[in-house]
């Protein structure tokens, strides 16, 4: 009986094999031949007058807290561009994928967007962990990735356009201001992963130059919510400034517990690179008031472009929604993409041509006039210092007088990112 089954199976297997080969030959012909016949542009990335772009933000899982707002900002920009007639007569089509806050899923979904869906560019991710997870996909397939988050720098890829800030942009004005205003005794507190450690590396270099003393440098586990020991150390050490690179819901717990313990932000403010309007809304204005943040964008920034951005965002997604310094780069990133395509015009639309076209591209973003640095593919930005008020918004107390050049390897003077890649001297 088992013999019979085997023969049957092998026949099936053989026919299956031949069929597969036939199908394979057929589809190979389809890939190489048909598009040239069917589409006059001969361009697989801009078929049927449609340009497919991937949108890769988590809508489920822990990161959804923040990535949902990035998703919304990106989608809104795409809708706006389409409503205004698209790009060179072609519409953008967003292919949305939900990587569920998991780096491995990020990589898998990125691969699907690039290989199967043939997106010419993908907009996505918030954390460094997920960027690092998708990076090999974009480098291997030579595709393009727009990354909106401020991050730790120390990366030089020709497949990523970084629209967020790197350490030198957020800290170069911020640290001297804090030393001058509050004093030279500092405590550093961060979440335990690469971003806070790299920010602190750069911070310590600046502090050393300014002759400051670091009383404590500590890292808490991601998602940590019990800060009573940390707060006790603040009470004991009495630093002039607490430099905080704690991220996510931990920021909320830290601020609330600092406030409940009766510490005074006027004497011992927390200075942060990661506390945005989003986190402030979750901790309440009382707990946030008096603490400082440095960022290229605040919701209260006054400019015609920002007024339009904030009002369209509220109109599209709800009047209680806030815009912040990660959703703004997510938004203008799509417009940079649009400008690059307009520059290409009738030419071939591929990740390579878009990258070349986006180099040196300038535009007026909600935060001010920004520019893509041709060498590093990072962005010239306008850092501002904001102090939080009890109504949950920031007061901008200092603006830079000129845009800040991105230096992704600022803490590593012997390394430079260039158009040809990383150069070590």
């Amino acid at each position: 009986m088992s013999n019979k089954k085997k023969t049957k199976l092998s026949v099936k297997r053989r026919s299956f094999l031949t069929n597969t080969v036939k199908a394979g030959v057929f589809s190979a012909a389809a890939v190489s031949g048909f598009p040239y016949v069917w589409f006059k542009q001969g361009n697989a990335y801009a078929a049927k007058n449609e340009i497919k772009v991937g949108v890769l933000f988590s809508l489920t899982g822990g990161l959804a807290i923040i990535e949902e707002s990035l998703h919304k900002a990106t989608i809104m920009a795409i809708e706006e561009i389409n409503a205004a007639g698209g790009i060179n007569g072609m519409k953008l089509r967003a292919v949305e994928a939900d990587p569920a806050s998991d780096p491995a899923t990020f990589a898998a979904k990125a691969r699907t967007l690039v290989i199967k869906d043939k997106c010419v560019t993908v907009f996505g991710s918030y954390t460094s962990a997920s960027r690092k997870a998708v990076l090999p996909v974009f480098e291997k397939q030579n595709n393009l990735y727009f990354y909106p988050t401020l991050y730790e720098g120390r990366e030089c890829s020709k497949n990523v356009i970084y629209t967020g800030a790197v350490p030198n942009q957020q800290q170069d004005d911020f640290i001297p201001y804090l030393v001058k205003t509050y004093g030279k005794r500092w405590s550093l507190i961060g979440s335990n992963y690469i971003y806070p450690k790299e920010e602190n590396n750069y911070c310590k270099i600046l502090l050393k130059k300014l002759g400051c003393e670091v009383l404590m440098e500590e890292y808490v586990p991601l998602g940590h919510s019990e800060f009573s020991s940390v707060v006790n150390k603040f009470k004991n050490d009495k630093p002039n400034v607490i430099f905080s690179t704690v991220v996510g819901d931990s920021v909320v717990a830290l601020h609330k517990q600092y406030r409940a313990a009766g510490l005074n932000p006027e004497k011992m403010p927390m200075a942060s690179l990661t506390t945005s309007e989003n986190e402030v809304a979750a901790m309440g204005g009382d707990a946030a008031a008096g603490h400082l943040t440095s960022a290229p964008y605040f919701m209260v920034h006054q400019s015609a472009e920002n007024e339009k951005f904030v009002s369209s965002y509220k109109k599209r997604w709800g009047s209680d929604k806030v815009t912040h310094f990660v959703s703004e780069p997510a938004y203008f990133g799509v417009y940079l993409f649009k400008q690059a395509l307009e520059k290409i015009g009738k030419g071939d639309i591929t990740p390579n041509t878009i990258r070349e076209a986006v180099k040196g591209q300038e535009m007026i973003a909600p935060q001010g006039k920004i520019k893509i640095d041709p060498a590093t593919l990072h962005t010239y930005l306008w850092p501002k210092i904001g102090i939080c008020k009890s109504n949950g918004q920031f007061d901008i107390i200092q603006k830079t007088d000129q845009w800040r050049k991105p230096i992704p390897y600022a803490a590593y003077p012997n390394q430079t990112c260039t158009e040809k890649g990383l150069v070590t001297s």
Partner: protein
Amino acid sequence: MDFFISQFISGLSMTSILLMISLGLAIIYGTTGVINMAHGEFVMIGAYTSWFLQTTFGMGLLVSIIPIFLITALMGFLIERIVIRHLYNRLLDTILATWGIGVLLQQFIRLTVGSELKYLKIPSFMAESMTLFGQEVSIYRVFIFVFAILTFFVAWFIIFKTSFGIRLRAVTQNKDIASCFGINSGVVYSSTFAFGTGIAAVAGAFIAPLKSISPDMGTNYIIDAFMVVVLGGVESLIGTAASSLIIGETSSFLASFSNDTLAKALVLLMIIIILRIKPQGLFTKRTRS
């Protein structure tokens, strides 16, 4: 010395939070033998119920304790009746089923309320700090401490001083013989489950103002709760209290000498070593079985 006292007080505060979140888990596991993986989500539901009552009806935290307890206890009761009831004595199945319930609850909140962090405020008269043994201490933390002790004694009173408690203990010791004496074990089980759920939810509502509220907040708490219950011994209320104290104070002092990341790892290591020596936990009942 000052630092020692303030660290000791921090430890007590951590103890009270651990006690509140693990009490419900200990009661449910001790009685029904169900390892409730949805416990963290019950804590989360409590926080969201509190947020809902505060933003919709303007109810303060203290006023909303009773509605929160009743709403979530009802939820626990229904979950027991619909799902858990059919799975008693099937350990793996209950783990899987309660895990699934947890995922459902998380996604339910995500779809209805949204996934962004929510804000729950500390009642204004408790928002400041007070001086205790020469240390500035958050009034709200003191309040949580007092409330945790209170909850513990209410649970102790119900289990050891009421006729329901007698039935509950009888069912815990031997379900079949208890049934022979006319005790309806089904009712005991579902009310225990409801009670445990209610306590978890109230814990969530009280802790949330000090921390943050998100759909996946429960996953952090359930690990802590399990550590407490496993270390204390699963059938002992005193064990739960004692192991909360041990974990709370140890974390607090380790964190003060090193940092929170290391403290967390060392506490886990300590628990593993203790369980190697006493696999049943620190406090176990001697039985003939």
